[in-house]
């Protein structure tokens, strides 16, 4: 049994959507001032909603195929997070971030080679 491309795509989508969940949670957290601001905080609500949507796509993805192929692809979430941190929060790229990023992409590529 090999893992269908549709499952691989669902996991990619899930990690992509989830990474935006993190962005909005951070935007929301920066605006937190007391309990009222937590309840009426649309950034936080959007962040949570994106996380929920991300986990629905994740479960749809792992429903078909092997976890040894699909779970490691969760690490791609780190790639998105580094990109958004640079774009939205001006957090600089560092040598270790770029090195880790290349290794993660290489690892995911290798795992997909092993999908046979």
């Amino acid at each position, binding site marked *: 049994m090999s893992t269908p491309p549709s499952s691989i795509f669902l996991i990619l989508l899930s990690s992509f959507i989830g990474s935006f969940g993190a962005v909005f949670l951070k935007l929301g957290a920066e605006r937190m001032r007391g309990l009222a601001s937590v309840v009426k905080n649309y950034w936080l609500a959007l962040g949570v909603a994106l996380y929920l949507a991300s986990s629905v796509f994740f479960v749809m993805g*792992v429903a078909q195929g092997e976890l040894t192929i699909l779970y490691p692809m969760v690490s791609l979430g780190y790639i998105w997070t580094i990109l958004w941190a640079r774009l939205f929060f001006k957090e600089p790229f560092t040598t270790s971030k770029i090195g880790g990023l290349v290794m993660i992409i290489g690892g995911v590529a*290798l795992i997909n080679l092993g999908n046979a």
Partner: protein
Amino acid sequence: MTSPTLLEAPFDTRAALRRSLFIMFLCTLTGAAAQMLIKLGTKQIGAHITLVDVAHHPSLFFRFGLDMIGNPKLFGGYAMYGLNTFLISIALKGRELSRLYPIIALTFVWVTALSIFVLGEHMNFYRAAGVALIVGGVSILGLKAAPRKS
């Protein structure tokens, strides 16, 4: 001494650091176990839904979400994730998450091992090498050029 707060973080003790590392380590184990529950739960839901299906019938997305909540294994798996997140936030108090990445990356090892021994999936050279590369990659993400000495 009172419980540690964010303000006391710079005067961290070795014992507190060890406790954080230990909690994080436990969280990688429970996180991997949660992942097993989730995969086993999807076998009970059984429905094969692709993105194309969702595009044609968007209501499938919400129905699938409700199925997830109604499945004890999936519910249990995500409840464990919730507990994990809570424990991690305690372990992290005043620490940078990125510096604990080498421990967090262990989750990939546990999930792969459990997939083989619990789910009966097969392993090959590419998959093992890929996981090793990912664990290495995630571990170095948070490294600083010159680590601070405290």
